């Protein structure tokens, strides 16, 4: 069987004021239909960059991504993204946020009534029916992320890309959403690529865990197959020796083989010290209006900063 999604020798180089910066190289990955893949690695290792390349938001400078035999070179709804910070439009209700996506994807394919039913169905999947006419500022962080997932699912993507979908949530809400996601996954059997920092989350949800080496010039270090039968139950697994073994393997990769030492950190920083500080500022001033001059900075430079920050 041909893989659904294929990354071949993907590499990316950003040009910065201080010369070029190589974020990724030689990333090879084949993903089959219905597979749930997690990308895990330390901050700054380029996980988000991989995801953004698959999403089409960034262009690889070497190699390429092929989805169902077609090369990926721009963003599109068949590769729906669940963003880390939900990215809902604050002026639209939950329903309208999903509606925007559904109208865009199913224009001419579904009637008005079918669209309405489809939007409501997807909001029901994530248990948001009771608050579907509320705006993002009226619902909690976990609920926003649910709507973000509903929006992505409603596009009927061939691959669902999730950029640390639960990273900004508290532990209890996160566990709750992970369970919801597993239920949905049982029903829809989507192909998923998820970025995570959380070892438990990776082992619990994934069929395979892709572990990435530290940047610069990050690549895939190891791939771990998680052979645990579904449905998985977090309580039972907590005592399961296989689960703990997988967990141990990921942890040993992250903290022994790819240990983030002070040396490697300073090395990474010295390659781009100026950027590091800008990133922080960007992160903090993001929600507020940035002054005109700063707001003009976009394009690859800005994307690179964002990527470095979230990776």
């Amino acid at each position, binding site marked *: 069987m041909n893989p659904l999604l294929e990354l071949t020798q993907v590499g990316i180089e950003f040009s910065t004021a201080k010369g070029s910066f190589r974020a990724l190289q030689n990333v090879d990955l084949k993903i089959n239909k219905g597979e749930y893949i997690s990308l895990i690695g330390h901050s700054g290792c380029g996980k988000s960059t991989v995801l953004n390349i698959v999403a*089409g938001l960034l262009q690889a400078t070497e190699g390429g991504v092929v989805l169902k035999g077609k090369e990926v070179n721009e963003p599109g709804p068949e590769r729906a993204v669940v963003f880390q910070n939900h990215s809902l*439009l604050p*002026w639209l209700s939950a329903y309208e946020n999903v509606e925007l996506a559904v109208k865009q994807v199913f224009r001419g394919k579904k009637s008005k009534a079918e669209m309405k039913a489809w939007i409501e169905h997807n909001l029901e999947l994530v248990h948001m029916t009771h608050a579907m006419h509320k705006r993002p500022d009226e619902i909690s962080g976990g609920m926003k992320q649910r709507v973000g997932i509903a929006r992505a699912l409603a596009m009927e993507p061939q691959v669902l890309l999730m950029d640390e979908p639960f990273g900004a949530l508290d532990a209890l809400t996160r566990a709750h959403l992970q369970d919801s996601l597993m239920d949905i996954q049982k029903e829809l059997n989507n192909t998923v690529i998820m970025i995570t920092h959380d070892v438990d989350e990776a082992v619990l949800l994934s069929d395979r865990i892709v572990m990435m080496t530290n940047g610069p010039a990050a690549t895939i270090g190891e791939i771990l197959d998680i052979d645990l039968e579904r449905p998985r139950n977090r309580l039972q697994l907590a005592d399961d020796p296989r689960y703990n073994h997988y967990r141990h393997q990921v942890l040993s990769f992250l903290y022994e083989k790819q240990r983030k030492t002070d040396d490697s950190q300073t090395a990474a920083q010295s390659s781009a010290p100026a950027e590091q500080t800008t990133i922080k500022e960007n992160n903090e001033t993001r929600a507020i209006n940035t002054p005109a001059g700063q707001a003009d900075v976009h394009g690859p430079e800005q994307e690179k900063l964002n990527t470095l920050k979230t990776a």
Partner: protein
Amino acid sequence: MSIALTQTLSKISWLEPMIKAVQGENRSQNLSIIAKAIGIPLAGILVFLMIWHAAASSINTSLGKFPGPADVLIQSKTLISEHITEREKAAAFYQRQDERNARRLAQDPDYVVKIRDYTGKPTYVDQIGTSLITVLSGFLIASMIAIPLGIVIGLSANLYSAFNPVIQIFKPVSPLAWLPLVTMVVSAVYVSDDPLVAKSFVTSMITVMLCCLWPTVINTAVGVASISQDLKNVSQVLRLSWLTHVRKIVLPAAIPMMFTGLRLSLSIAWMVLIAAEMLAQNPGLGKFVWDEFQNGSSNSLGRIMVAVITIGLIGFALDRMMLLLQRMVSWDKSATLR
């Protein structure tokens, strides 16, 4: 019903405690809140009036003493009564004309009725009306140019850099510098046997427009340019067309900044208008001030002072109206609007 009304009214800061006090809820505390909300601004105004009164009586000009609050009150009453008598005269004129026409029709059924307009001089209220129409039409045209322009240059960093120097250079230009040019261009271009509106109106309006374009352009552009990358990514993933992107994402995101610009523009428009009307002789408040200055009677300074206060009050009212409009249009009802 009463609850809805209460909620609407409670947006005014001192009304809520007043309603509560009337309802008998924690009366003494609410009364002290009212005293603070109304009393302190009132005290400020009173102190100002006292200082004004004291200062005015010690300033002597060739037209008599500088008008104090009392003179202004007298003059504003005169202006209103002048307006009323003028309206009565006009009504009487039209009535006489109607009667005359009816008589002539009775005598000669073929008579073609002619209706002549009343040609009395515009009253103070008429002049306020003219000023408002001029400023609003100038502001409206400016907004129709500035908002699309701001969106387009906000979307592209290159266009922004291209337009920015021009905007920065024209932004600080005084209306007085534009006026001679506008006057000459209008008299050359706006030639018509039966003009729809007076030349002085067009000149004032265009001057207002030229001066109040810039804040809206700049603020809209900044608002558009500072849309978060996340929302742009959403738009890209959805493959929104340019128009949908602008309608669904850019416009709502930029509305708060756009209104900041619009409010700045409107207040500039109102300030510019008075100067423009003085020089272009557009029959509005600016011309009123100028005519009174040229007139130089003992009442003139008082009447000008009435105009000054009117201008201030109308400027304030215009700003409040923009704020109400922003509340209606903006999605972000929780944002503090000032």
